[in-house]
């Protein structure tokens, strides 16, 4: 179970967060942005699972419970994001974030 060292596993989740943040900063397509957001959320969820595997008793179970709750939360957030994408697409016929720049004065 705990044959992999903690540092390697944390490196994986840090890489996921990095990929997610990079995507959020560089992507201009709203769907790809949603995917990037989802990847960075998953980094946090993975962290909870990793730490709970190294803990025993209540402390370990708490982390797994948090992970399950977070999966539900991430799904809710993406549902709202998709609703916004649909409304944007209906209104502008485009889901390119860079084209949405009317809020300037």
């Amino acid at each position, binding site marked *: 179970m705990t044959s992999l060292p903690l540092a390697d596993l*944390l490196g994986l*989740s840090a890489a996921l*967060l990095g990929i*997610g*943040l990079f995507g*959020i900063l560089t992507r201009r397509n*709203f769907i790809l*942005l949603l995917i990037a*957001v989802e990847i*960075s*959320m998953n*980094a*946090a*969820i993975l*962290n*909870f699972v*990793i*730490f709970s595997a190294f*803990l025993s008793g209540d*402390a370990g179970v*708490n*982390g797994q419970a*948090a992970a399950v*709750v*977070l999966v539900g*939360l991430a799904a*809710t*957030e993406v549902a*709202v*994001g998709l*609703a*916004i994408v649909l*409304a*944007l697409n209906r*209104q*502008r016929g485009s889901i390119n*974030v860079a084209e*949405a*720049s*009317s*809020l300037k*004065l």
Partner: protein
Amino acid sequence: MVSLVGIAPWSPEIVLVAAALLVFLLDTVGVKRSELFAGLASGAAALALLFVVADAGFAPFALVRTVDPSAVDAAPAGGLYAFSSLGLLFQAIFLLTAFFVALASASRPSDEKGSAIFHGLLLIATTGMLFVAVAADLVFLVLAIEVTSIATYLMVGYTRRDPRSLEAAMKFYIIGALSTALSFFGVSLLYGAFHSTSLVALSGALGGTTQPTLALLGFGFLLVGLGFKVTAVPFHAWAVDVYDGAPTDVSAFLAGGSKKIGVFAFFLVFIGPIAFFDARGAHCLTACGSVYNFHPTLAVSLGVLAILTMTIGNLLALMQRSMKRMLAYSSISQAGYMLIGIAVGTAPALAGATLQVFAHVFMKAGAFLLVAGFATIGIGPLIDDYRGLGARRPKASVAFALMLLSLAGIPLTVGFVSKFILFSAAVQAQGFFLVLAIAGLLNSAVSVFYYARVLKVMFMDRAEPVPAPLPGPPVAGGSEPAVLAAGGFGYGRATAIALATIAIVVFGIYPQPLIAAFQSAAEHFVLTGA
């Protein structure tokens, strides 16, 4: 059988959720009347407010007290939630904002599309805010913030037809999701470092863990995530576009209410058990003299964040031509003042920051509600469009002037009281915190310029003979009966604005009971850390 006693403390939340479900149900069965939904929402907020004020120990309402008095301000036990006087004060502040916004929105057209969505989500968002104020666990806290965030993303874009509000919703969503991801990543690292997500486990901060690097990273990520929520300066840019593009009643709710959950989250995470307890759980005020002898780095970094936030918010507010954008930047600079309180971290400073949050309900949410009202009677979005308004709409203009004077911190307004308490707490704390007090005073002076400019435009400048008509909706609102009532705003909005204005003056002239209540709540918070 389920004991009713067990769920009694959650009466405010239950009332709000029940009202929200009723609004959605009525909308589904075809009752689509905006003023009915607004009445339900403001009624539910008022009832919940009654419960919360009773729980906070306000004697005349003792009969409807739902939380066991011994459970309020109890020593931290490490559960998911804990009731504290300060948290209850924040709950009252949040409910007051929701009440004002719902009351004002009663004046919107009866057949407005999406009205049920707006009022239902307003109640759901407020429920999330109430949960933030009782959180005692990091996962609980971030989930509660998220309940509010998800509801407010939808509120910003609920009209769906207005391209500006949809664009604001999109920006709000992206930034919100980013800040959520960062907060959760921080929480997960703290879980790894402290082996628990309870706030009590954070006692002693880096001294309480065997993995200080992990804990430091966790606190850092959480600082950035929460920094987005309170619009602290490197993470502020979204707020202006969102407050500008959102329907103005929603901006009032965001600026006056939902942004402030970040302030309380800062209290919980960076002031609570961390600041007041050492790793063994002993109370730190006795052991280490001053709280920030214990955590100088944290104090200085929060202080720098506060100075940046005030200064940059103020300087950018000076350059705005649009009323809503000016108010949005002023909202950012006001967040800087609240951060002063968090950086100083003593009981008077916390009381001052909470007072500032309280004052904001009346002056900032009130100002946005008033701007929304001015828009319904055909006043344009630019500051110059308010030219000569003092002569045409004297009562509303005086109310707006009072709100701006309160934001600037002029004596005899509630905004002065909160700033006075806040800055004098920073002066008392000595050392580095003197810099914060001076920076706050200088910034207040700068802010007077842009508020006074609006006053000058409203009262000194003569209106142009023919006001430039705006493209789109008809300029004069005389054709709609609802708009004619109460000086053109509708009775709901006029009442909300009148109440806010009265509160600004009354609490400005006679603040003693208010200060006493906030001070004692802050002292309890300092003693129990929750």
